[in-house]
């Protein structure tokens, strides 16, 4: 490895020239990426030191004012807590249920292909549509949830779910878990099927019952899938927006205002592009820390 690296260093340009046709093929993607991602990133960073309301051509320099405002912004702090709440509840729950469903659907049962499709269906349903339907399911007077909960006498008074300041976030979490279970299931199913059968046989010979086989064979062997789902889940749920936008608009009383929703409000409700960019960079930093942590975990686990 080392020798090859040293040899190539002098001839980078040479190699590039030799492979020039590859750059031609890369160009369309690279150009689009540069304009719409790299440039946007750079422009947003530039905006964090500016005040801008989109319409005005002037973008006065405000120094670190946006950063100062952010540090003292209680609403932003609350949005971080709300996001952590959402992530902490929805990611483990979605993974646990996904694993359970994967284990069940790995059994030789009738129509399991159909069942797998059904569980995966929410994942490919347009999210806005699901969110609108769930909004109706949560309706206090006419929603299906209340109808069955009341019928089974689990509750005596109808719950108002999305309009209740303490229930709104759990309600959004539940809906998000429903939507994400299919994905966890597919990933776990693939993981389960790649576990060599010898391991189970060996465990059985050693006298391990079904529980022990799950605990000491399946779950450890699935840790790459678990880590993958955790990384994707955390990154995804830190950016939760659609279901908040459709189902609660951040309410009631800002109890479901997550970071991205708060950034959206700063940008498109108050037209404070500079401040919104600053907040977006804060979110970016948080995600960067998480990703770095998880990459270390990956390496340590030598996966």
């Amino acid at each position, binding site marked *: 490895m080392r020798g090859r690296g040293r040899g190539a260093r002098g001839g980078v340009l040479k190699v590039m020239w030799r492979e020039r046709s590859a750059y031609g093929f890369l160009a369309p993607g690279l150009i689009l990426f540069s304009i719409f991602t790299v440039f946007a990133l750079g422009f947003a960073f530039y905006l964090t030191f500016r005040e801008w*309301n*989109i*319409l*005005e*051509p*002037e973008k006065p320099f405000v120094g670190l004012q946006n950063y100062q405002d952010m540090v003292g912004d209680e609403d932003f702090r609350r949005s971080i807590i709300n996001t952590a709440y959402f992530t902490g509840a929805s990611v483990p729950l979605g993974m646990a249920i996904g694993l359970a469903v994967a284990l069940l659907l790995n059994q030789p049962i009738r129509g399991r292909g159909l069942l797998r499709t059904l569980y995966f269906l929410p994942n490919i349903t347009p999210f806005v549509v699901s969110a609108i339907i769930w909004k109706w399911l949560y*309706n*206090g*007077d*006419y929603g299906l949830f209340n109808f069955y909960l009341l019928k089974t006498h689990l509750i005596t008074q109808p719950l*108002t779910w*999305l*309009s*209740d*300041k303490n229930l*709104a976030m759990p309600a959004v979490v539940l809906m998000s878990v429903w939507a994400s279970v299919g994905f966890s299931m597919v990933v776990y199913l693939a993981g389960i099927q790649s576990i060599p059968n010898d391991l189970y046989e060996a465990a059985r010979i050693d006298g391990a019952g079904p529980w022990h086989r799950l605990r000491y064979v399946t779950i450890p062997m699935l840790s790459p899938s678990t880590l993958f789902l955790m990384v994707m889940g955390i990154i995804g749920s830190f950016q939760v927006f659609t279901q908040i936008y459709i189902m*609660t*608009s951040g*309410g*009631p*009383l*800002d109890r479901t205002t997550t970071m991205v929703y708060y950034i959206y409000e700063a940008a498109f*409700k*108050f*037209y404070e592009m500079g401040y919104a960019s600053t907040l977006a960079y804060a979110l970016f930093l948080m995600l960067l820390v998480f990703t770095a942590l998880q990459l270390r975990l990956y390496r340590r686990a030598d996966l």
Partner: protein
Amino acid sequence: MTHRLSRRSLATVVATTAALALAACSTGGGSSTDKGAGEGPVPEPTSPVTISFASWVGEQPDMKALIAKFQTAHPNIKVEVQNVPAEEANEKLTAQVAGGNPPDVAFIDASTTAQFAARKALVNLDNYIGRSDVVKADAYVPAFKTFVTYDNSMYGLPFDGESTALFYRTDMFQAAGISAPPTTWPEYEEAARKLTDPAKRTYGNAMFASSPEAAYYWYPWLWQAGGKLLSDDGKEVLFASAEAKSAAEFYVKMAQYAPKDYLNSNSYDGRQAFANGQVGMYVAGSWFAGTLGEEFPAINGKWSVAPLPKGSAGCGTTIAGDALVMFSQGKNTDAAWKFVEFMSQPDNVAQWTYKSKDGTTLPPISSLLESPDLVATKPILKGFAEAMPCGVSNVVANPDWPKIEEAINAELAKAIYGEQTAAQALDNAAAEAEKIIR
């Protein structure tokens, strides 16, 4: 179906920013007061000219018919229609003005007129109005004239308008033994109490704590109590006065007669509750009548409209509307005026507003508003027309206003959820507003 309220509130934000944007660009079109100087009727162009007309209503059959009629009467003037979605109209116009290429005529949210006029982007219409036999400045309803007046001159002609009124379910009123819609605050509360029966899932009125609904639907009560939002110069916070507090207390108290389900919703989504017969009274603009007619024909005849109840300071309702304006950088100002003048003829305004098939907007011309023809054509508009003289605009020309309104909304929402009293809500919001204004 455009959600009327959100369009308005967005327009407010955009207008204030637009005003700032325009300040930064040199408009350079010269003085706008000398346009149209002269005597007698504006002459017809002798060779063919084309004028551009920007709006979000150019595809509506009534607008198409009016334009066709104009072109038949004025064969030398061709109208080129530019369509812009309502939400983007102000942004687009701002960009066009900045780029030196605005349309000749535009249909805009009337409340944004003054802000365009302040930046010399619009033609002062006083000269043209003085020469016209058709357009009379004092024919307009005063509140709408205020929208388009800047520095004592008219920069636009009001073209349509709407007010906020009380929608009520006649069938539910009958069932609850209420003979007539409430005309005072105590009557309103009495009606709300009688209509509320959680066991039957029926409620007196609807209440929304989401932004900006909590604040927006509080304003009419504020006007009725004689309260104001800010001082005229926009520097003083007036919405924590005793009058304002009495309005907020009454408003927040009404939350107990509202379905909790819709607390975190908005007045557009809440239409379901009214259509389902869950809610007996619904405060909304005339867009709501259009929505009900289009979407819920099944309840035709089971609802009606009345003016909002009167408070201690009399009647009060929130109004909004659209106006026709001409841009000072336009090239064919005389021809543009011919078009604006034609559109503003009372019969054409009537055609555009209450005589239009599904239209539920009101004519901003007093004689039309008071004519028996209006009620005969569209009985449902009676309540709105009666409320019009009490109209107050909630538009505040202050770039910080959206943030202040957000503070009012957040604090009132807490009061609606029972976390604080209405008086505390206004005090907190006022403290926040003072900080924002300083």
